[in-house]
């Protein structure tokens, strides 16, 4: 049964909106930003937290969590994780999958985000195993340095040979999981891992500059500091 009115993107329920307002008044929740440098695969920006600001380059003040070399305002839009869902909260002109949005809007995997008419980003949640999302660059706007994509990490991300892993590493023999535990970033894999050249069993803590290597792969995690 189809009713005539359509609004593809559900507006947030009042409770969710309230929760967001409350969060706003308490100040922004902490966001950690990392770079993942993966040999033979690429570079990803990893954002850990539940609220990320997208903005353009700035002369003064701290840059946005996702700072793109693009004609965006300093605070253009925020991406928020509320419960199991991702929302985009526009502060400036934003379009989601062809629809101009004025308030917080639910994002679904496969949605296209268009900011300031020219900046096009893809939003997807590649894996059903984790709620972490991936931002792909569909226009040529990137952060200051070449980055293949931005990962919005909630609980865990998967790096491995399959297409539904957050970072697809075709030549890797086994999947590596990066996850947070008690606010600490850790990683584990079924295959043997070395952390900074020392073999570890089970899982290991990741900190700024940690080099993780395995039989046929290597990557380094680096904390991004606000410049």
């Amino acid at each position, binding site marked *: 049964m189809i009713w005539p009115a359509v609004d593809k993107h*559900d507006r947030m329920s009042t409770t969710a909106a309230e929760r967001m307002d409350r969060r706003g008044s308490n100040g922004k929740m902490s966001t950690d930003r990392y770079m993942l440098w993966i040999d033979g695969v690429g570079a990803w920006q990893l954002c850990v937290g539940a609220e990320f600001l997208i903005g353009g380059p700035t002369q003064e003040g701290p840059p946005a969590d996702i700072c793109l070399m693009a004609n965006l305002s300093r605070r253009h839009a925020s991406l928020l994780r509320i419960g199991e869902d991702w929302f985009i909260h526009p502060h400036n002109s934003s379009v989601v999958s062809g629809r101009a949005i004025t308030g917080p809007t639910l994002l679904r995997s496969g949605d296209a985000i268009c900011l300031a008419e020219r900046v096009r980003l893809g939003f997807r949640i590649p894996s059903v195993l984790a709620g972490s999302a991936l931002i792909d660059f569909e226009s040529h706007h990137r952060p200051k340095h*070449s980055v293949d994509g931005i990962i919005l990490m909630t609980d865990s991300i998967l790096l491995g040979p399959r297409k539904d892993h957050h970072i697809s590493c075709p030549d890797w023999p086994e999947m590596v999981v990066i996850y947070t535990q008690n606010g600490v970033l850790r990683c584990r894999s079924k295959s043997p891992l070395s952390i900074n050249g020392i073999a570890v069993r089970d899982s290991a803590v990741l900190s700024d500059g940690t080099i993780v290597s395995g039989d046929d792969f*290597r990557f380094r995690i680096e904390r991004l500091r606000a410049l």
Partner: protein
Amino acid sequence: MKFALAPESRPLEGYTIKRAIHRGAFGEVYYALTDAGKEVALKLLHNNTEVELRGVSQCMNLKHPNLVTIFDMRQDADKDHWIIMEYVGGKGLYEVLQENPAGLPLNEVFRWLHGMTAGLSFLHDRGLVHRDLKPANVFSDADLVKIGDVGLSKYISESRRSAQTQSVGTVYYMAPEVARGRYGREVDVYSLGVILYEMITGRVPFEGETTAEILMKHLTAEPDLSVLPEKLRPVLAAALEKDPDRRISDVDELERRFRKAIEDSGFELAKPTPVYVSKLSAQAAAAETASNGRFGLAAASEKDNKVGVVNSWLGYWNTRVPTPIKWVLCGAVLWMILRSGAFQPLTAGGLIGGMAYLVYRQFFMKRPPTVAPRAAVAANTFLSPETASSVAHQESAATRSTATQSPAPVIMNAPQRQMAAAPQARAATAVVYTPATMRQIPAGQRVTDVTTSLTISLAAAALVTTAVHMATDLLPNAADVAFFGTVTLLAAWALIVPAKLWEGRTGDAIVRRLILAGLGLGVGAIAAVLQQFLMLNDSQLLRVDGDGIFNHGTIGRMQMLEGGLPTMAGFMMFFGLLFLIRRWWWQADSFRKARFRISSSLVTLFLGVVLSAILPFSEQLGAIWALAISAVVQLSSGWTPQEDRLLTQAPGASQAGPVLAQVRHPVVVAVPAAAGHKA
């Protein structure tokens, strides 16, 4: 993949390696940042010789947008040479081909070809030959094609002759004369030809297990050109010619011939512009483009401004609730309303509200007339079905993707209501004549239609009643048969007559339904009287076992059931709802899909089942009755086969006006016997 240098190592002063990019046939490539933050690619050369280094230094100052720029060459502490060059992000042609095993679209093929040609042409113009052109050396960064490894060619060709370090991937693209040590610019033409072949077909022309096998094929085997589009075969044949003297000598010439060949085969390389036929289809196309673009802003709609609880709720209902659950929920709500005894007040409220809305709609709301899909196209001068459909085809060229054959009447030209693109597109494209098609049927024709249908319905009703008598044990004696047959016939007449009067005309579906419902009430009343007259009080035909879902067979204060038989109110309710819910005039229209549609009958049968389950009415009888009426209506109403449905412009209608202008006032006549009977 293991790489020699670890992240964060600084082989050269001022450069910090961040990650390894890949390992090529002749060295590792790293992504590095200078201390100031510039990103570069660092290539470590192994086993370098004087000759090779000279090759690189020759190319040090070449500047071309389609070539990867070399910034510098430096030596590290171990005396190894590093080439510092522009970092190119984005996908390489190698990866693109891996992702598209069946080949690339021609526009993409041409984009890559064009970039490679420009870069190679620049090199050739400066007396240089690349010599190692292959997909792994070609990149696309921000839609700009770039050729890498410029200047390293000599290095490769030296080692190639020693046949030590070659990987199979390189040999696929190697011209046959390279084996004899000849390196003219035809070598690059040949490699470009192989890449072109691979981009189009997804396969290289010469495959093999070993380097030697592939080299042998380059020297002796003929490429299989039959897999290519016909016009492209001579172009690729000339590019893949074994003898360099007979090969196309110039990459620009190859691009020119390639371009001409695909344009000759009717393919437009530039972005095809939509065919402009009418303002309507152009508008629809534009609107469609806007709404289909993933990123574009959808065509402005007044809905955007309507931010409200109702809309978001409806949005949720329409998109998130699965259809079966919708049915269950609707059923549950209906059942609760009926159970609670609130049926009567709700019905009364609904009737008053509905009437008020109808009055408002009729007198206060500006609304363009409802127009049939075909009217837009057929309102031209005389059109045979072929030309009509070809016109429709042209008009729909730009809007084909939204074409739908939905028979639902659509509202056209409603700028004041800011209709979305879809109905407009549909209006311009539908090729099927449906009962919603407006047509002018002369009064005489109409009268003939009605009388013929009524006459045939006598026979049809007799036939159907006999069938029911034979097939079921519902009608055991003559009185039952007479009762069933008469009421069926009456019901069919009550449906056919208005349907034939409405045929080809515009009209509000709700009004039509309400009129039919009124006629249904009448049929129910007559049925009740007839039941008394035929003294069917003892008949099993009408006997109701249960109470429906009502308490004691009443709806509100109305008695539906008395002594196990439906009262007059019961009959009236059954026929009224039966007539109200189905769109009966479609079943009687001569432009319906088929003379007798089983699906249509089954839906009616299902409706009968539902009605007799809700109302205190014999379930078997209710279902069979609904089916019988549907059958009689369909069998006796005139029907025009699809191919005979010709429409032409009526004399007197404006010939000069554009199609668009006539959409609001479609004046078309059904010819020759469109509304008549196909005997």
